[in-house]
Every structure is written in C-alpha cells, then in structure tokens.
C-alpha cells in the first residue's frame, strides 16, 4: 500500500512536472536568445489559457484542437509586445539588459493582468471536457488521461523545438545569435529579426502551456505570478537558456513537490520548490546541467 501510494505520488509529480517544464521552455528560449528576463511570462500563459477557454465555450473547440489557435494568438501578442516594449532594450549591455527587462516585464505583467481583469472579469475559469475524468490504472497506480496528454504535449513541443533549433537554417541562426550576437551579426544575420522570432516563439509556447493549465487547473487574471515563479525555478534548475534542461528541471520540481507533500506535508510543497531554487543558486548557479562556459 505504502509502495503503491509512493508510486502514485512519483507519477503525479512527473506528470505535473512536465507542465512546469513546458511553462519554462518558452521562458528559457527567450532568455537564452535575447537575455530578456520576461517575468510577464506567466501572463502570457494566462492569455493562452483564455484563448483556449473562449474557443471552447464560444465555439466548442476541443482544448487540444485549440493549440494552434492559441499559439498563433500568442505569437502575434509576443511580436507586438517585443516591438512595443522589449526592442528598446536590445542595445543595452547584458547586465543592464537583464535589470531593465525585469522592470519592463514587471510593468507589462501588471498591464496584462488588468487587461484580463477588464475584459474577462476576475472569475476563475476552466475547461472540462467529456473525457476530463478518464484515467487508467497500471499496477495500482492511476494515470489521469488529461495529465498524461499534457506530458505528451510537453515532450512533443520540446522535441519539435529542439529539431527546429538543430536542423533548420533559421534555428541555427537563432542558436548562433544566442551564443554570440556580435559574430552572428557579422555573418549577415539580422539579429533584431532573430530576437523578435525567439520572443514570439517563446510566447507561443506559453500559449500551449496556458491550454494545459486551463484543462488541468483553472485560470484567472492574477494567476501569472505563480507560474512565472515556477518557470524561474525550473529554468534555474535546468540551466539558464538550456532547452532540454527546462523539461528535466520541470520534472525534478514536480517530483520534489509531490515528494514533499507525501513525506512532510502538502502545505510545504511550494516551499520545497523555493528551497531547491536557493540550494541550486548557492551550490550550482550554472544549473544542474548547465556548463560553466556558454
């Protein structure tokens, strides 16, 4: 019995962790390429969630079918936000870029929250599909279908992003710009276009994550901060800008949280994540899988 519920906890932690990983994936892509610390990432997740919610409740579109809708919407939102706000900080040296984008993104998160509050009200929303409660059991461990689908989606997007960055010319240009923007610029790469693309792509990944949050949890205008925080912890665990590290970091955070609720108390699960965050910053600031030199 003990083993079984331990197994259940582990599985649950992994499934939740995949979602954390997906939320962090977009943030990590944006940070890795542009060195923008976009603390409004959680708000982008929220808007992705609302895209899914309205598509479902107004048009009856299945949440998983609405993935492309949400992605396109967030891609455009990301592009607009980059053009209006972040593009002004591109020329700053790296350190002041991080500080300035932190402030700018904080302001942006307040604006996005209030826009959502104004247009969508403060009500908590979520999407419950006909198959939401389905689950199957292996060796006494329950696998809820919705969570499992989230894991699959997260892994699919990680693989797709990795292939895009490794195999396509545009992807290589993005990686080159992330490694050394000056050299990339001397290769004839328009780094402003690359930044715009990376930011919009990161935002569209937040859009996908928003859908999974909507079907597994609920969405409301002020939800952003807690998801930004999770994504930050995961990004630090996996190494700043490390793409596969984001998913692994997410799984670690998910398992740590569920282990904390199992062995200690579920009230401490959030604390466990933050303690892990501090320990990594103190002992391995380059992240669990990050290399010292970029």
């Amino acid at each position: 019995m003990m083993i079984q519920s331990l197994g259940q906890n582990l599985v649950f932690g992994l499934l939740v962790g995949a979602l954390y990983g997906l939320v962090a994936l977009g943030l990590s892509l944006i940070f890795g390429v542009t060195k923008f610390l976009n603390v409004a990432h959680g708000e982008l997740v929220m808007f992705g969630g609302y895209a899914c919610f309205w598509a479902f409740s107004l048009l009856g579109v299945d949440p998983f079918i609405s993935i492309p809708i949400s992605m396109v919407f967030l891609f455009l939102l990301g592009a607009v936000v980059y053009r209006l706000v972040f593009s002004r900080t591109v020329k700053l040296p790296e350190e002041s870029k991080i500080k300035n984008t932190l402030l700018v993104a904080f302001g942006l998160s307040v604006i996005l929250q209030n826009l959502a509050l104004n247009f969508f009200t403060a009500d908590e929303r979520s999407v419950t599909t006909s198959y939401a409660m389905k689950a199957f059991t292996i060796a006494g461990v329950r696998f809820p279908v919705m969570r499992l689908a989230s894991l699959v989606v997260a892994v699919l997007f990680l693989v797709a992003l990795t292939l895009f960055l490794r195999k396509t010319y545009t992807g290589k240009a993005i990686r080159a710009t992330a490694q050394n923007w000056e050299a990339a610029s001397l290769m004839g790469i328009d780094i402003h276009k690359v930044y715009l693309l990376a930011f919009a792509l990161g935002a569209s990944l937040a859009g996908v994550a928003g859908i999974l949050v909507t079907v597994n949890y609920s969405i409301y205008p002020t939800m952003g901060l807690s998801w930004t925080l999770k994504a930050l912890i995961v990004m630090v665990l996996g190494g700043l800008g490390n793409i596969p590290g984001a998913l692994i970091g997410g799984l670690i955070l998910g398992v740590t949280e569920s282990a904390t609720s199992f062995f200690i108390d579920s009230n401490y699960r959030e604390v466990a994540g933050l303690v892990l965050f501090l320990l990594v910053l103190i002992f391995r600031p380059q992240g669990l899988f990050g290399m010292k030199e970029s």
Partner: protein
Amino acid sequence: MLKLENVDVFYKELQALWGVSLTVNQGEIVALVGPNGAGKTTILNLISGMLKPGAGEISFLGNPLARITPHRIVELGISQVPESGKIFTGMSVLENLELGAFVMRARQKRTESLQRVYEMFPRLAERKSQQAGTLSGGERQMLAIGRALMSDPKLLMLDEPSFGLAPILVEQMFEMIARINQQGLTILLVEQNVQSSLELAHRAYLLENGQIVGEGKGRELLSYESVRSAYLG
C-alpha cells in the same frame, strides 16, 4: 573599392577616430598598424556597420555604408573575421561554416564555397562534425577565416589573425593570407605583428590615437625610422 573620408567616431562622448580617410583598392592587401587603443578595431567595426560614424562618409563599390545595418553590409560583400575569431563554440565546425553562408547571395554557392574552404583548410574537413569549442587555437582561427570566406566576400577584413598563435602558426597564417589574396580577394588587415604585416601588405596605414599618422607601401614603411623605433625596437 572601399573609401573612408574624414570619418569621426564617438563612443558616447568620447571621440575614438578623428578625420580618418583611407582607401582600399581591388586586389590589395592593406594593413592597419598601430599601438593598442589606436582605433584599428574601431575602423573595422565601423566598416562592418557595428559602429556608426559621427561624421564623414564611407562607401564600398559606390554604395554608401554609413546608414545601413551590419547584415546588409555582409550582403554587399564585406566579411569581418573578428578579434580572437568569435566562433560559435557550442556548434559543430560544419554548422559554423554553414552560418558563414547565411546571406542570400552566398546561400546558393554554399556547396561550392564549402568545398573551397575544405581545400584551403583540410583540417576543418577532418573535424567537421566536432564541436567548435574543442578546437585548438590555430584551428579556431582557421574556422573563423573559413566561416568568413563562406559568405563569398569581395573584401575580407581580418582583426589580429595571428593573436595568441604559436610562432610557427603565425608564419603559416601570413602565408595563408597571401594565398587568399592571390585568389583575387581584397584584404584589410589589422595586426599587432608589425614586421610581418608590413612585409605582407601592399600598402599600410599607421594609426595613433585615432588618427592616421602615416601611410605608404608596406616595405617602405618598414624602413621609416619612426616606425622602426616605435614598433620594432
């Protein structure tokens, strides 16, 4: 081919170049020599569009460069090998070279250019799938030059290509530059190694404190008393 006329450059308030004028003609090797901080790299960054002039004109094959962005300048046919190479260490040798041919004009000739670079640097062909970060100093410099050649440039600018190399490699590097030039490429060279670069260059400019203080044929400059005492001891 390339012409700078009375160019001033400022870093914020600080003036780095004062009324610099220089020309590079088709087929030449032109060297810029001078002490650290004289403004040699500034001139290269200015030509490649990384810096914009405060005053003066720059033109390349009749196109004014002062207002256009770095990636457009690469498209026009100027390629810069930055100081210490700045290769993409986290990517393979082949990927580095592919990125060199990023601009549209070079993309069509990619296979051809790659063949040429591999012939020139067989070592790069041997290591094409290796991470660039694992290369030795000399190999990195080869990769940086090979990457710049991939863009099929008309003018190649080299910033301290011999920096940090062992003496034997330095010699090979200068032979390599001469060979690239013989194949028809115009070269603008910035060097600390005054003796070798003046021997190599057709013409050279002497730079001090952001101003051009002398110009002449490479070997002529070598015999100047002021150059000898300042750089060659």
